[in-house]
């Protein structure tokens, strides 16, 4: 049996990578991709705990999370396309209208 800590460590690393990407990447699509990575890391966490407590509630939660993430990606990309139409770029460092 693989110890719980290993799964948690992996999910933490994955989450961190996703966070770094979300903080850093210029391309908006890339940011959304990193967001998905973070969501997946959370899902790993949920399922790992579900396995170790022998309670399937965690998996139910993860299933819901997957579904909602899919919806969110759809809407998010739609917005990104709209932004592209308006500003002709998806570079998030250029989208700073709400500056001081």
């Amino acid at each position, binding site marked *: 049996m693989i110890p719980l800590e290993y799964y948690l460590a992996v999910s933490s690393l994955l989450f961190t990578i996703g966070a770094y990407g*979300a*903080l850093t990447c210029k391309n908006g699509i890339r940011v959304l991709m990193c967001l998905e990575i973070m969501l997946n890391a959370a899902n790993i966490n949920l399922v790992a705990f579900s396995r170790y407590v022998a309670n399937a509630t965690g998996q139910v939660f993860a299933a819901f999370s997957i579904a909602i993430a899919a919806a969110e990606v759809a809407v998010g990309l739609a917005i990104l396309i709209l932004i592209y139409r308006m500003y002709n770029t998806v570079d998030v*460092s250029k989208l*700073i209208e*709400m500056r*001081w």
Partner: protein
Amino acid sequence: MLDLRPYAYLIPLLPLSGFLLELFFGKYTWRRGGIIANILIFISMLISFGIFYNLYFEGLPYTEYSWQWFYPGIVLGVVVDPLSIAMCCMVSFVSLLIHIYALGYMDEDPSKALYFAETVLFTGGMLGLVLSNNLIQLFIFWELVGLCSYLLIGFWYYKPEAAAAGKKAWLFCSVGDFLFLFGIAVVYKYMFAHGEPLTFSNIFIHLEEGVIPPEVLTLVAILMLAGVSGKSSQFPLHGWIPDAMEGPTTVSALIHAATMVTAGVYLVARTFPLYLAAPHGMMIVAILGAFTALFAATLGLVVNDLKRILAYSTISQLGYMLSVLGVGGVVGAYAVGFSLYHLISHAFFKALLFLCAGAVLHGLWNTRCIYEMGGLWNKMKVTAITMLVGSLALIGFPLTAGYFSKDMIVEAAYEFAVSGDSTLAYLPWIFLTIGVLLTATYTFRAYFTVFTGKPKTYLAEHAHEASKIMTTPLVILAACALLFGAVQKPFYHFVSTTFDYLNLAHLAEMGGNHVAHVAHHEHAHVPITIKFLPTVLSLTGLGIAGYFYYNHRIDVGKYITRDNPIYKLLWNKYYIDYLYKDIIVERIVVPLAMFVDSFDMYGIDGVVNGIGRITMSIGKAARKIQTGDIQDYMVPFLIGIGIIAAIVKLLGVS
């Protein structure tokens, strides 16, 4: 007759309400204003005389009515006793006559309703002042009449001299008022544990117990005297009255002859027991009053403006009134009677003189220099005769009211002199006696120059008599000036009973005064020569004036030129104005004011504005956080998550 004493508060209240009525509705009344004022003052006068009847003929007891005010011990009250009622009667009567006169005098003035609003406010204030039964209420009315004086002197505010004169009056009075207020504070400090701290009757009752130590009493006396100097224009705060002649003549009559300036004398009369009990208090008052009397009389000799002559004469006569209160150390309560008698008779003839001067000015289109007048005897008969009556009364010509009052004062001064234990005590008598001579001289200098001789200018040739509405008050006042002498003895008896409830003899001893007869003064032993000296001197003065000025016989300018040092001294009013303005104000007060102003501008405003500027600069710096870049916002987001997790871990929330 109905007991009017509980309605005494109406006496000031009616004119005060008249202020608002005239202010807002006056211009819609008959001939653009003034009727409301006259009616209300007339009613006040009726009530005053009614209460006088109550007190004198029916012998109703003196009383006071008070209502609790904003602080325990501070009251609003009316005192109904001979002193206040005599003043009320005089103020309302003379004020009414002057108001009637003003209906004619101010007829063409565009702000007629405003004028009457201010004068009726002033009358109400004065009536409130004399009816006050405590210091703080008196002070409030004191300031009120000062305010009205300022407003009315500068009534023609578009004339720069008038505006400046109003300001000068207010400033001089304010100096005095400030010290007066300080004196009230001192009294309060010692009295606040003993019943109503500032009510007169209460203060006087506690004087005997020595609640206020003697040195403090003297201090209070001097501080209140400062207020009196300001209001009644004694030396050194006398300088505002000559300038105050810039206002309408009726204003001069009302304020500076009959009523406001006598407020100071009234104050000393009202607080007479305090002055009795203060060591040296009496002496200070006597010398101050006498000195001012002489001082002003000297200045009256060189002035050429008719109203200014009368102004200096007012200052001088106020000095007489004040000094007789001072010498009251020897005559006890009768001093109040003497002073008040002279005050009332002075009110009559000074108001008469001012109103006559007003008639002269009115007829000569506001010419004021006496050397531009002349020969008005034929042109303005009524004015000339009434002014003659007034002048005779002023100098104390036998059988006029002035004779009775002024002679009494000089006699009392003599008694003071002989019963005093220092040569200082002779000073009042000396000053007052010389003052009699000078008074006669300058008064008739003015009279002869104006009314006898040939008219000097075109205007003087074509002068006309004033209208009936203006001459009638003149005649009435002249009659009073003549007839008031008849009531001398009863008046003294009546007024001197004001302080019967106190032990004046004891108080006088506390102040180190020798009192011959405290409560009831029998004619003391004054040598015959001294008794008639004032009369002789006044007639001499009349003769001198007549010698030089009757029909403009001698041109005094040939003998005394502009370069004469004495003349220059007098012409510049002893350089006192120069001292005040150029030295004290320019060199001391203005730099101080500028320093304070710059402290306010840079110091205080600097701090306040600085706080604003700091806030703004913090804001300017802090807003750089909002880069607009969402990825920059995620950093605190993640940090926040970490902090929440740490908190959850620390709190051990399961």
